[in-house]
């Protein structure tokens, strides 16, 4: 806070004097001044109010008085009053309405600057009444002759959408906004793009407003050449969200945006890089990709000469780019050498990238740099440099010896943290090149006393244990550690236990006593890991020393060269966010934002065109080649063509007597969607649940028999099981686990079985499930592998989860979204059946379906049909659209399914 009484004796001329306020009766005085007759005094008073507001004082009591000053021809004063209004209107909605008149009048002023100011400010006032009055002026301003007013109005649509999306849609502002994309003024286009992108991102239905097609993109690319820097960023960022229809389109867009790489604004550069990186995935022409790779190098290096803050953003992004396409910067490692005066955050990032770029060709230079860094001031940076030397050794075998020598030199410096870090990485070097550098163990042992960090101690102990046969006094050294065993970190304790067992197996005669000591220490601790490891060694050693030797001294797999890489699917997602916060944090947006609407982004999957299809003619492209569609089919594991169905009877289906229902259920069961239909058609009271099936016969379950089913109750999924103990012993200690599955189903609570379960006893269990687990595609899709543990052992079985339990309660799709989606989805995704011999009452269908979370969007009466349109949403955000035609006469109802999904995320996870 600013001190309340600051005096600026020297600077009485500037505005600083308004910060000078006396505390007592301040508001009262201001009130008087605001109502003064003199213009000058009123203006000064408003300035004081704004200064007080800035400092955080509550001056809302002055609302009516400030509002009085609104009617003025002084633009400066007007702006100040508006600023005040924007801050306090929300807390004084009733009074704020008094401002409407002035706003509406101003929005029709002859001066475009005032018109724009009015519309800009009105959009910032979040009071419902004002928003309503905004519509008419906004519509006028969107059609204004002056580009300045129009560009302001474009942004205002986004503001209004933020307050009341329904209003914007109802008033048709979205269409007007789309029209502005063709405006002749570049800034109008730029702001319209920004507004549309924002509206698309925050659209609550989760479905993108369709506005970007190749014609729209074309318009944007034309505007791009004439835009100011910020507009270029808006445009490039929305082009990055567009996936070209075919490779040639991708190439031509690339060619048109390449010149932007020479723009002075770093954000324009990076957004261009984002589009290029994304489109490179689609382009198969190797020569073109090479050209892009070459073009990308210089601008990325140039970014390293910008202000440190921008450099930081650039480096975080380069870190991603290098992981995906190292060839872009492989010759530029020198650019990432650290300057003495770089801020620490730049130094650490540069170091990280340096290591990623290290190769046989440049390792000599890198190594001497890293050695230099070993004497820097910042501890974190020095540690990271030392670690980096170890990573060089592991990465480039030819230079491992030089790296080890460098590490030894660093150990000689005796700087405590350098030594510790060096020991840790030398352990890794040993794991990569076993039996190559044991000559240096002696030197390492000399610095034993200086090691006080757990990781360094553990590493040293590991080395001693691993090479116990070559270190004469290994026993003594380990014994030294053993004295303080209880005070050590668990990491060190575990390592010490293993090392001593190794020593014993290698040199049994000398270390009998030591091993007994450590085993008894380990098995008496509270830590289960340590205790159990102790017991395992103990039993191994006493039961079969030869086996112990085989287990403990077995050959270990070598460690890998590449470390710290991001998980590939995350990397791909982040590359779609180049230049944004996500790329700076290296986290997906959901990890740092409250709510993420819209889809998660993923790199496009390359087109696999044959020569003929890569022609420009979009028509010739088989739409089944577009990625999402293929995935859906894949996901459901179903051949969608009607011929693919096998019609077989299904045993215990609840039927109301008609044979056709069986037929229907089996075919729908193929899709895994049939049960609600069954239910709707049958007389069973909703919600539907299938009867329990035998999951685990007693013969396979070591006496335990399980019948089970899945149901959906209160919008949650439950697994209901009947456990029967057919064995002669009582069963206890039940636990359950699922294998990764397509829908990420996991138990939400532990399994509660009254134990012991006596022989011939039986119990009913209902287990709450959640769908937040990890996802892996199973075949068939609704397959679930379950493991149940009890006192007898672990039992495995598989069962099928009926699809209808995944139908969520929020599956009611917006009517218009439903309509546009239905139209968009190509015919290949549609499956049709005819339900024979069935007379249906549409009302009952609607009602029954609703109980099962199948929502009826629309109902139409067409000629002699009743048509129902329904939507279903699965827990993994897959949407299913249904159309049922029920004829009035004696013919049979037809059902069409259309499937699409929202949430590319879950699909990708399943596929990868």
């Amino acid at each position, binding site marked *: 806070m600013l001190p309340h009484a600051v005096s600026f004796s020297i600077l009485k001329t500037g505005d600083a004097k308004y910060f000078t306020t006396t505390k007592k009766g301040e508001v009262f005085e201001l009130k008087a001044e605001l109502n003064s007759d003199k213009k000058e005094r009123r203006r000064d008073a408003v300035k004081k109010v704004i200064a007080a507001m800035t400092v955080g004082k509550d001056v809302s009591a002055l609302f009516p008085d400030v509002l009085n000053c609104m009617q003025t021809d002084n633009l400066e004063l007007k702006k100040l009053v508006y600023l005040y209004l924007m801050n306090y209107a929300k807390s004084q909605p009733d009074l704020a309405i008094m401002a409407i008149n002035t706003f509406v009048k101003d929005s029709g002023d*002859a001066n*475009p600057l005032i018109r724009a100011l009015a519309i*800009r400010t009105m959009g910032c006032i979040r009071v419902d009444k004002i928003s309503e009055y905004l519509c008419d002026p906004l519509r006028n301003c969107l059609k204004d002759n002056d580009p300045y*007013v129009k560009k302001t109005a474009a942004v205002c649509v986004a503001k209004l959408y933020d307050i009341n999306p329904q209003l914007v849609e109802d008033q048709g502002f979205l269409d007007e906004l789309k029209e502005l994309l063709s405006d002749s003024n570049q800034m109008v286009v730029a702001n319209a793009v*920004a507004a549309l992108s924002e509206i698309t991102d925050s659209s609550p239905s989760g479905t993108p407003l369709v506005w970007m097609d190749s014609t729209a993109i074309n318009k944007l690319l034309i505007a791009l050449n004439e835009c100011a820097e*910020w507009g270029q*960023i808006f445009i490039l960022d929305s082009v990055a969200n567009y996936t070209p229809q075919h490779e040639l389109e991708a190439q031509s867009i690339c060619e048109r945006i390449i010149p932007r790489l020479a723009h002075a604004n770093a954000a324009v550069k990076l*957004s261009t890089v984002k589009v290029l990186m994304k489109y490179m995935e689609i382009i198969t022409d190797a020569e073109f990709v090479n050209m892009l790779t070459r073009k990308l190098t210089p601008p990325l290096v140039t970014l390293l000469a910008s202000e440190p803050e921008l450099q930081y953003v650039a480096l975080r992004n380069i870190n991603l780019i290098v992981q995906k396409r190292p060839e872009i910067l492989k010759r530029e490692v020198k650019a990432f050498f650290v300057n003495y005066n770089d801020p620490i955050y730049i130094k650490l990032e540069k170091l990280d990238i340096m290591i990623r770029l290290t190769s046989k060709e440049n390792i000599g230079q890198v190594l001497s740099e890293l050695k230099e860094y070993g004497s820097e001031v910042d501890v974190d940076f020095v540690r990271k440099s030392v670690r980096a030397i170890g990573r060089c050794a592991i990465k480039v075998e030819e230079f491992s010896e030089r790296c080890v020598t460098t590490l030894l030199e660093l150990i000689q410096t005796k700087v405590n943290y350098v030594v510790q870090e060096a020991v840790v990485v030398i352990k890794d070097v040993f794991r990569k090149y076993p039996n190559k550098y044991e000559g240096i163990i002696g030197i390492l042992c000399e610095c034993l006393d200086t090691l006080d960090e757990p990781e360094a101690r553990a590493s040293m102990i590991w080395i001693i244990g691993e090479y116990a046969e070559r270190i004469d006094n290994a026993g003594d050294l380990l014994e030294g550690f053993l004295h303080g065993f209880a005070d050590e970190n668990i990491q060190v304790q575990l390592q010490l236990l293993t090392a001593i067992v190794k020593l014993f197996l290698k040199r049994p005669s000398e270390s009998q006593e030591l091993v007994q000591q450590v085993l008894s220490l380990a098995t008496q601790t509270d830590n289960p890991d340590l205790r159990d490891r102790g017991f395992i060694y103990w039993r191994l050693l006493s039961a079969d020393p030869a086996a112990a030797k085989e287990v403990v001294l077995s050959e270990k797999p070598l460690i890998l060269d590449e470390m710290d890489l991001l998980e590939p699917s995350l990397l791909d997602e982040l590359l779609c966010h180049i*230049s944004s*916060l996500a790329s700076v944090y290296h986290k997906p947006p959901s990890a740092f934002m409250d709510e993420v609407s819209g889809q998660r982004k993923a790199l496009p999957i390359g087109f696999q065109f044959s020569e003929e299809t890569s022609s420009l003619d979009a028509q010739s492209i088989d739409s089944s080649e577009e990625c999402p569609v293929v995935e859906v089919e894949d996901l459901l594991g179903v051949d969608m063509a009607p011929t693919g169905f096998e019609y077989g009877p299904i045993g215990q289906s609840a039927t109301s007597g008609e044979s056709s229902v069986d037929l229907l259920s089996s075919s729908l069961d193929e899709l895994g969607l049939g049960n609600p239909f069954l239910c709707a058609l049958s007389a069973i009271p909703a919600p539907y649940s299938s009867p329990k099936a035998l999951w685990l016969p007693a013969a396979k379950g070591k006496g335990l028999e399980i019948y089970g089913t899945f149901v959906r109750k209160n919008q949650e999924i439950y697994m209901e099981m009947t456990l029967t103990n057919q064995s002669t012993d009582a069963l206890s200690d039940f636990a359950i686990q699922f294998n990764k599955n397509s829908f990420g189903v996991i138990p939400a609570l532990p399994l509660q079985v009254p134990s012991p379960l006596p022989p011939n006893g039986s119990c009913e269990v209902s287990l709450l499930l959640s769908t937040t687990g990890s996802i892996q595609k199973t075949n068939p899709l609704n397959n679930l592998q379950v493991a149940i543990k009890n006192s007898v052992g672990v039992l495995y079985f598989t069962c099928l989860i009926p699809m209808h339990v995944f139908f969520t309660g929020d599956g009611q799709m917006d009517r218009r979204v439903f309509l546009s989606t239905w139209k968009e989805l190509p015919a290949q995704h549609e499956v049709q059946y005819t339900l024979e011999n069935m007379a249906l009452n549409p009302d009952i269908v609607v009602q029954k379906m609703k109980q099962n979370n199948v929502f009826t969007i629309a109902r139409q009466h067409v000629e002699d049909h009743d048509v129902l349109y329904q939507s279903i949403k699965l827990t993994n955000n897959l949407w299913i659209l249904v159309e049922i035609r029920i004829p009035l006469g004696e013919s049979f109802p037809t059902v069409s399914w259309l499937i699409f999904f929202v949430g590319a995320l879950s699909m990708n996870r399943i596929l990868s």
Partner: protein
Amino acid sequence: MIGGLFIYNHKGEVLISRVYRDDIGRNAVDAFRVNVIHARQQVRSPVTNIARTSFFHVKRSNIWVAAVTKQNVNAAMVFEFLLKIIDCMQSYFGKISEENVKNNFVLIYELLDEILDFGYPQNTDTGVLKTFITQQGIKSQTKEEQAQITSQVTGQIGWRREGIKYRRNELFLDVLEFVNLLMSPQGQVLSAHVAGKVIMKSFLSGMPECKFGINDKIVMDNKGKGLNTEEQVRSGKPVVVIDDCQFHQCVKLSKFETEHSISFIPPDGEFELMKYRTTKDISLPFRVIPLVREVGRTRMEVKVVLKSNFKPSLLGQKIEVRIPTPLNTSGVQLICMKGKAKYKASENAIVWKIKRMAGMKETQLSAEIELLETDTKKKWTRPPISMNFEVPFAPSGFKVRYLKVFEPKLNYSDHEVIKWVRYIGRSGLYETRC
């Protein structure tokens, strides 16, 4: 997009606060103060996430400028914008200081309202902003003037207004290069590059179209077909290999991409026409040869030889060599052949200043440093010796070949324009390890 923008003084008191979006509450102002300005540890990143709200900050001379957002915004854009605001404020009222910010807070609010709408940056060009955001208040604008302002703010050529007139059409070009060097103690160049810029000051009437030519290798290769680089060098026409360049927004980038020609309509007055980077064939104007000897635990001898490496007819200026000394230095004896050298205890360095030095000369400094005995085991880290200088040529070999001016509507021709070119080479980070 940007949800709010705050300016603080070094104590963390808020001087300006403007919120653009509803998701940013008043507590955001305090969150940044507590977690960043008053943070115990040194700030380790210019981007901070506090309770799912992201803060971007830039600190210039004790003033913190922070942007806050709850969305996944374009981070590079936010920083570019913050730097632009600072530029803009500087051009309105000079140095960014607490006093200046307070004295101009009404102006700053007005600017913030104009250049950021709902968190989206709008036209930030100071030249244009100054035409309609003034502290005088616009009272008597004619309709034409108003229309002109709006078309200029939104216009394609947002950086230049119509109807500029000069009696004397004149332009100045400054080629300003910063040489960056990192040299090993043995004199091996570890990395070297030139960051150059061309600054143009134009006083031209009307809407002149300019065409700018340099001795860029690609252009010269196309021109002097058949001649390879060496022959060109011998023929007295050296070329420069530009690794990367970027231009002011007035330059038509697509034309540069296709024809490699730099054409533009310049803003009135001073602006940065282009920036470039070169790494090949840099002539390093100075060479520092250090010799450091630690004699026992309490004495050190340093000898530094400085060689100038350019045409003897030219003069290097404002030369300063900065030799770091250990923290436990108790006394320094200095002898230098040229200029003045001083030990500055507060900066832990010997500063050796030479006003002028001609090319192909050599001079040296020797110092005896006495050290206090310390018990710390940690060795002195020996920061690099850095130097500053200014030379009257472009170390990269960059040459302006021509700058042609066409103004089709007004009747002045290219050769009536008075043109001036100046080359300045300055030190960037010019360091030699010792």
